[in-house]
């Protein structure tokens, strides 16, 4: 029980020490960014259709945009800031040695930082999703909010694990490596109509979006992008990716020899 609550204590400490004006401003920016885009889109739609604006007619464009803005962009940006530099900031701040010296330091700290990244990013994503769905104002508002929220949860859990692994493996060029991964794999390969896109997180999230929103036409017209697999396959693939990435990161950090300071 004592060790089980340790990641929670790490998370508390991490959130406490990161409670700075910069981080709070970033949180609000992540919330505001999708809201501003959706509000602009709604304004344009309202202006173009005069008084006959029916949100139900725009459900798919609004839905895709919201999906792209929150589970794909907001979540990834937040996690890039929190999960990726989990190790490199400690190494650069020369505080890694203090953590590595603790009996449960390495794994618990990494897992605690993973939870912190997920909680911080998810809180911004969920608030943003709620405001955006309310702005769109369709009759399927509740369903869209539920779907987008679950997708944000899955996106945060999976992407945080991947970014954490990148941070553990490439502690010197962490951000560059993570951005390259995001651009090439998640925004590039996930759209490639080949077997390789099935190993990306965004492909699985898009498949779940189409499934849960019941957009069968969209799926049949763009099967390479949205997939044709059932929900269970997508969930299993996401779970496997998350567990493998997180497990490997936790294994690697236990045996890694990171530099501590200038040699003396």
């Amino acid at each position, binding site marked *: 029980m*004592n*060790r089980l*609550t*340790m990641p929670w*204590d*790490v998370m508390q*400490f991490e959130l*406490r*020490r990161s*409670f*700075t004006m910069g981080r709070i401003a970033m949180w609000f920016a992540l919330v505001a960014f999708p809201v501003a885009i959706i509000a602009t889109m709604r304004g344009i739609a309202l202006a173009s259709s005069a008084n006959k604006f029916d949100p139900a007619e725009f459900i798919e464009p609004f839905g895709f945009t919201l999906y792209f803005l929150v589970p794909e962009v907001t979540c990834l940006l937040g996690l890039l800031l929190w999960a990726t530099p989990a190790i490199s900031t400690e190494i650069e*701040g*020369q*505080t890694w*040695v*203090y*953590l*590595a*010296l*603790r*009996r*449960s*330091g390495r794994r*618990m*700290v990494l897992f605690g930082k993973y939870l912190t990244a997920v909680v911080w990013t998810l809180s911004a994503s969920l608030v943003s999703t709620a405001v955006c769905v309310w702005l769109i104002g369709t009759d399927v508002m509740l369903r869209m909010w539920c779907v987008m929220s679950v997708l944000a949860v899955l996106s945060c859990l999976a992407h945080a694990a991947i970014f954490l692994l990148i941070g553990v493996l490439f502690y010197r060029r962490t951000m560059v490596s993570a951005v390259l991964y995001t651009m090439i794999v998640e925004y590039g390969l996930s759209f490639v109509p080949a077997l390789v896109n099935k190993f990306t997180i965004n492909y699985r999230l898009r498949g779940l979006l189409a499934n849960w929103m019941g957009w069968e036409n969209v799926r049949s017209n763009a099967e390479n992008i949205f997939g044709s697999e059932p929900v269970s396959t997508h969930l299993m693939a996401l779970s496997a990716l998350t567990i493998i990435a997180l497990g490997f990161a936790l294994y690697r950090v236990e045996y890694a*020899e990171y530099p*501590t*300071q200038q*040699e*003396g």
Partner: protein
Amino acid sequence: MIELNHVSKMYGNVVGVNDLTLRIPRGAYGLIGPNGSGKTTLINLLIGHFRPTLGSLQVLGTTPTSDRRLLRRIGLCPASDVLYPNVSALEWVRYQVRLHGISRRECKSLAEEALETVGMTSAMHRPMGTYSLGMRQRTKIAQAIAHQPELLILDEPYNGLDPVGRNDMTQLLKQWTRSGRGLIFASHVLQEIESVTASFLLLHGGRILASGTAQEIESILTDTPQEVFIKGRDAAKLIHRLADVDWVDALQLNHGKNELRVSLREPAEFYGRIASWIRDDNLAIDQLQTPDGNIEAVFESILRRHRGETS
């Protein structure tokens, strides 16, 4: 307490420590060496942060890299500073203790006790960003002793401490040593270590040059070629004495003729005779400066001995 068996650590092509073989029983030891001598590498090996490239080591009867439970028995105060500006000392020390798997309630009392020991009770609720260097140093010591380890390893613990702080630290370390617990104390200032312990390990270029008590090291030094400075109005008058003996390699008098540099092959002979020469010739000599306390000179002397330049 510590056993090293032909331990080497390489960073690519760079040697961190080179073929260290050592066995030291429980006690207090000063690890002394200039910057880049391998002190921090050795410490990182002792705490299991690094694996030896070659050889094996045991600390408190356990291999550090294979048994993480050992870390509960070791306290380390690294030389690097702590950079958590908006966290208080109490929060940080409690967090560090918690990472050992100690219960939350116990963590708080252990952290408070350790901070009290280092005299940080009144400031322990303040953010660490408001601390002076000396206060941060005390906080670092607190995190090292808070979980009550058997072996305490300190890397340059006097950094940033004022004279009062240095005295307090010396008393704390003496008390620690008296309690029968182990202490490894790395520094490049001989006097700092000497105030706490009489046992030394001299490290240079990743190798142990010498080990033993201060007296033993002094004895090595007296048998090792070294340079001595004689300062005073009559320093030049010693030249005729020193020129006649075969254990002096070189003599150099400065322009003011009040400082004589003597390169000695057999310092013991010099120390045996210099006092009687000064007395017999009734010379005014103000100062005799030996390499003691000057770490670079000590290492230079011992290195010359290692290179076989001594007779």
